C-alpha cells in the first residue's frame, strides 16, 4: 500500500497582530515554530518579527520533522530542538494546544521555564501557555516516576502503529529491571480505561507516543510513564529541574 501525505496548507495571508507582538517584545531571543499547515508562511513571519527591536528569532528542524520551523506533538523533549544557545520564549503559529504544549512540556528537565506565545491566525488572537498551565501535568508525571521505582508488576504497552512502535527497545526493560515482572501488551491504541481489564497490572509503561504518558495521564487514575524515562528514572528524579522542583 502506498501512502500520500497532504500538508493542507493555510491559504490566507498571515500577519501577527499587535497584541502578540507586544508579548514577544518582552523577550530577547525567541524560537519560532508551527505545524505543517503554516510553515510555508514562517520565513515571512520571521522577517516581521525581526523588525521588532531587540528581538532575535531562531528556529530549527527537530529530528522527526521534515522542514525547518516545523514542530510535532512528540517534540516534548528539550534535546529535540537542538538549540545552540538558550532561548527566552517560544512563538507558535497555529490553532489548538497539542503542538504548543509539546514546547512547554519539553522544558520539564531544564532549570527555567520559557513561556509559549501562541498566535492563532484563525481567531486572530494571542494565547499564552505559562508554567501554571503545565504544573498539574508535571506533578502527576513526577509522582508516576516515583511510583515506578517501587512497582513490582508492570504492564508494557507496545503499539502496532509503525511510526510509534518501540518493541525492540522495550525488551531492554527486562534486563534493566530484573526484579520487576513485565507483562507485554500490543494494541493499536492505548486506552487508559482499557487497563482496568487487566487488573494484575497496577502500573504501566507506554512505549507509543510520549504524549500519552505525559498530558493524557492527568485525566486518569492509572499511573504510567514513558519508555525512555523508565530507563533514566533515577537520573530524572535526581536532577534539579522544573519537573522535580514544581
Amino acid at each position: 500500500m502506498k501512502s500520500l501525505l497532504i500538508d493542507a496548507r493555510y491559504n490566507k495571508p498571515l500577519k501577527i497582530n499587535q497584541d502578540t507582538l507586544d508579548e514577544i517584545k518582552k523577550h530577547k531571543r525567541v524560537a519560532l515554530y508551527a505545524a505543517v499547515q503554516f510553515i510555508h508562511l514562517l520565513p515571512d513571519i520571521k522577517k516581521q518579527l525581526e523588525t521588532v527591536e531587540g528581538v532575535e528569532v531562531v528556529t530549527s528542524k527537530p529530528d522527526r520533522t521534515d522542514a525547518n520551523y516545523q514542530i510535532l506533538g512528540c517534540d516534548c523533549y528539550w534535546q529535540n530542538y537542538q538549540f545552540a544557545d538558550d532561548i527566552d520564549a517560544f512563538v507558535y503559529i497555529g490553532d489548538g494546544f497539542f503542538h504548543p504544549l509539546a514546547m512547554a512540556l519539553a522544558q520539564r528537565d531544564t532549570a527555567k521555564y520559557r513561556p509559549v506565545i501562541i498566535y492563532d491566525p484563525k481567531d486572530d488572537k494571542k494565547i499564552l501557555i505559562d508554567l501554571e498551565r503545565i504544573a498539574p501535568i508535571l506533578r502527576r508525571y513526577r509522582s508516576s516516576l516515583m511510583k515506578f521505582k517501587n512497582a513490582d508488576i508492570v504492564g508494557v504497552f507496545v503499539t502496532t502503529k509503525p511510526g510509534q512502535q518501540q518493541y525492540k527497545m522495550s525488551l531492554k526493560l527486562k534486563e534493566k529491571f530484573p526484579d520487576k515482572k513485565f507483562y507485554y501488551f500490543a494494541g493499536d491504541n492505548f486506552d487508559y480505561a482499557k487497563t482496568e481489564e487487566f487488573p494484575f497490572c497496577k502500573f504501566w509503561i507506554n512505549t507509543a507516543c510520549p504524549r500519552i504518558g505525559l498530558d493524557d495521564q492527568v485525566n486518569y487514575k492509572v499511573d504510567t510513564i514513558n519508555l525512555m524515562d523508565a530507563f533514566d528514572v533515577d537520573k530524572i528524579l535526581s536532577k534539579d529541574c522544573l519537573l522535580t522542583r514544581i
Partner: protein
Amino acid sequence: MNYDLELEKLKSYLKEHNCKTIVLQFPDGLKVFADKVIDELDKMNQEEGTDVMPIIWFGTCFGACDIPLGLNQFKTDLFVQWGHNVFNRVEGWK
C-alpha cells in the same frame, strides 16, 4: 476458573513448532486471566529451556472476525485467540 484455557495444548504446540514471539488475544471476560497464561509460559521457559516471548493483545476481541493487524512487526510466530472458534467469512453483509 470456570474455563479450560487448554494451556497444555498451547505449550505442546509452542514446543513442537519452536515458537518464539507469540501474541495472545482474550475476550473481555478472560482478560483478567492473561497473567496466569503468561506466568505458565514463563515457568515453561525456566523449567524446559524454551524461549517464548508472549505479548498480550491490548485491544478488542469481539470474535474470530476481530484478529489484529500489524503483528508481523514483532516477527510473531503464532497468534492465539481464546473464546471463539473458526469464523467463516462471507462477502457482504445480509
